[in-house]
């Protein structure tokens, strides 16, 4: 039967009302659909190996012998004419790659905000030799694993960052003569019974990614669990929160860590010798000679001894040792 007019009109009105509301519904979903929260980027830093040093078949400097990689380029008569020196003079600043977390060698003094230490004083002497004062030294904190890379890239002119002289590195950069003789040692808890690396099987040993310490530990005791971190000082945090049982790196750094945490002790056993040198650009032999000349002067005029005493006198009580002997090719 056909509904009369009023009924039809009523139905139409009702349908219209319902439709309007449905339309509102579909429209109002977009009220909230585009409400969003900003997303932050993930700040994860993946540990990387020393990218500048190829892992497979590393090229070596033919003049470098693994028996004695410390032989450097002798100071020559024309050392003042080096490209790097000219660039540095023109710029008015010596850019030096340093670490700001290695206590006693290169660390930022929280009180003054200034980076200071043994390495820094070595750089200061080089700057003095170039400019006559140390106000033209620019310290650029670099990542431990970027020490080689920043010299290769020319980001810095010189690196003083507990930098071990190695033939694999000679392939890419030059080194000055040895200015400090370190050796890799192990820092353990004060109550530890371990005598050497052989006693650390199954224990967690912390070392900085890209350093020689990692390889040395793995070679000496494959059963030790090596925990790699980005920075030496990060090892101390893991050590203090019992996340690692030992820290292995150069004794110089360990001395610094031990100074910050007296509840640890340094084991006497040492691995390989770690001769420290200043990292210098590969192509500029004259600059290497110039730096070696500066080091030679420091050894002879007692500045080296003073620096050693200033920074390491507390941790090496007694008479200041002799500086490492300069060896040339």
């Amino acid at each position: 039967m056909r509904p009369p007019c009023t009924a039809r009109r009523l139905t139409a009105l009702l349908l219209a009302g319902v439709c309007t509301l449905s339309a509102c519904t579909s429209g109002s979903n977009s009220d909230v659909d585009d409400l969003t929260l900003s997303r932050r980027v993930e700040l994860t830093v993946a540990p990387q190996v020393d990218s500048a040093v190829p892992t497979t078949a590393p090229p070596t400097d033919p003049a470098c012998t693994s028996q004695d990689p410390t032989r450097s380029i002798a100071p020559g008569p024309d050392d003042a004419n080096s490209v790097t020196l000219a660039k540095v003079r023109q710029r008015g600043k010596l850019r030096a790659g340093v670490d700001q977390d290695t206590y006693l060698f290169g660390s930022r003094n929280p009180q003054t905000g200034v980076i200071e230490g043994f390495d820094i004083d070595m750089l200061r002497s080089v700057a003095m030799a170039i400019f006559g004062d140390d106000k033209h030294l620019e310290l650029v904190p670099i990542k431990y694993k970027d020490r080689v890379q920043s010299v290769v890239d020319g980001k810095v002119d010189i690196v003083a960052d507990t930098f071990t002289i190695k033939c694999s590195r000679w392939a890419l950069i030059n080194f000055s003569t040895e200015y400090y003789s370190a050796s890799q040692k192990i820092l353990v808890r004060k109550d530890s019974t371990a005598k050497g690396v052989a006693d650390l099987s199954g224990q967690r040993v912390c070392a900085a990614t890209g350093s020689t310490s990692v390889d040395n530990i793995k070679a000496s005791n494959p059963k030790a669990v090596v925990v790699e971190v980005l920075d030496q000082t990060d090892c101390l945090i893991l050590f203090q929160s019992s996340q690692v049982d030992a820290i292995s790196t150069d004794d110089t750094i360990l001395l610094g860590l031990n100074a910050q945490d007296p509840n640890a002790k340094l084991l006497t056993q040492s691995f390989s010798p770690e001769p420290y040198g200043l990292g210098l650009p590969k192509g500029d032999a004259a600059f290497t000679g110039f730096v070696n000349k500066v080091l030679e002067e420091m050894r002879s005029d007692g500045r080296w001894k003073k620096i050693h005493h200033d920074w390491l006198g507390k941790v090496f009580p007694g008479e200041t040792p002799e500086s490492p002997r300069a060896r040339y090719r």
Partner: protein
Amino acid sequence: MGNGELRATDFRVAIQQHVNIERPRTVCLGSDPPGLLFESMAHTKKRKRIERRLDLGNQIEIRTLIVRTTNRICFIDLRHRRQPRQATKCLGQIGETISKVGSHRDERPCCRTGQLVDVGPGSSQPDPRGRNIGWEGRMKLANGRLHGKHPWVTTENFLHDATGNPFKQLVALRANDGLDRLDRNGVVNRGGKRIGSCRFGEVEFDVEVHLERLRPPTLFAQDPDDSHHAETADFYVVSHIPHPRARSCTLRPMATTTGGPVAAPPSWANSPGAATMAWLRSELRTTPGRLRLWSIIVLILTALTAIFGLNTLAGQRRSTAELRNDRAAMLFDAQGLHSALLQADAESANAFLAGGIEPAERRKRYEDAVAEAATRLRAVASRADDQETRVALDAIAKGLPVYAGLVESARANNRQGFPAGGAYLRAASAKLRGEIVSNVEEVEQIALARFRSRYKSLVGGASVIMLVLLGVLLALLVWLQVSLFRRTHRLLNIPLVAGSVVLVLVTMATIAALGTQRKDARAAVREGFRPALDAADARVQGFTAKANESLALVARGNDDAYRVGYANAITQATNRVTDLVAPRGSDPTLAREALAVFAGLHDGITKEADAGNYATAVRAAIADGQGTANAAFTMFDRETTQIVNVAYTRFLERMTDATGRINALRWILPIGVILAGALALAGLQLRINEYR
């Protein structure tokens, strides 16, 4: 034959059929009612009959017998009921011997079969349309066996049609159903009512015959208007064979039939579904029956609409309250927690940069930020009612003291001049970002998602279904009104009209209230929630940028990640404040300017640091006072906080309005619907009563 006597046949067949008559046809009276019936059926379109009988001899239960034509009678063998076509046996012409059907191997009749018994003068009662049908009944015991399941009683009805011509009808009454519950001598009528008992060869019974049901359709289908009333009728046509071992039996009527129509369901329909269908069919046959059905539909629809409406409105109230009190608050508390954590991160890094003994004011700001974070964390936790959020909050609550411990370690080392302080600070920051802030972000995302889904359920879905139900109910009432008008020619059914009017009012009130509520909710999101979210997010991103700036300076030389983090955060913060549509009573201009100034000063600081003037850069980064980056950021912080507060208050106000609309409607809707339904039922009842 042909003289009013039953044809002497040696088969017995029971037929009940629904005959659809396309149009009324001439009454053809004769002396052989079954024959007439079959003849009339020859013209019917559809013949169907439902019967059940047990052929013990052949173990065939015959349930359905289909009369296809007058002279073919078919059975369906139930053993093949799944393929009825194959199982149908057509038994040929009437008059053929069908000896197997209905023969019983071990029957023990107590009465002589085939005896005709007068059941007294038939009562003369009007049929539903007021015509008197005279009848007298003679009962014949077709099969007096009472110990089995299938006693049969037949009756011959001597009927007169409307024109006064007599005719005779043989009717078989089955009395089997319900017999199991009676004593073994019982005989029941079709409705299952016990009508008598047979003892020592005597049967006492009382037969109730529903005239309307016995009326041959062809006889009464004279009036075109009546055709639909007589479309279907039930028939029992039985001829019989006398049983050789039958004994004589005296049948004595117990009482004269005076009862009204037997409204009981047909005897063969003993499954519940079939019973309902049969009852429905019988109800649909009459106008009051149809009205009763419509009443039931109105009742169901009314109840459905009222319940659904009440439920929907309760859901809407819950949604509104939850949105207002919990979902939004949880999100903003989570964002406040986020900002406070990053502020703590930035302040601790700044204090570290300052070197030496940190300024007391800066230390206090750090402590305030941590306290604020703890407060917000508690606020979020009080509203966390899902597992995911609780897990995330658990991680935050566990991480926060660890973070604070690392910051204190950094501070202690710093005070001794150890570089481990810087490392501790980086570790603290990494902990904060890695575990704590990522979980806070998770909580924010969950809170926002839940806000979204709650909002959608508030403005959509259920309320539309409720309106559709209201519309259907209204349409039904209008249709009933119109169709009653057509049928009864009564202009107005006052209660029905009143019910419709009430329903129209309720529907309009509902549409109006829901519309306003929706408008309020949308305004709450547009004017309150969205700007609050934007401003809070800008704040979070601003603090992220600030913390990254300080940490980039702390981690000099190892600051790539922080620089990227800064750039990303400052871009997002700037976009947010730029896109921000400020709520009334607040001005985002200052926030925008402050952030721009801060970003500019930051670029200067970065440039200084890149140029090697680290000390200058640090001094600029930690300096307080007019024109410094810190001052600009403090202003940004203050302005965005202000906007968040204003917008959030606005959101709360508008949501309160929205709740008010629903509250008003909450009782109006169900009461109105029930009132309308009751009025409609009353209106229908008026019409039903007219048939009594």
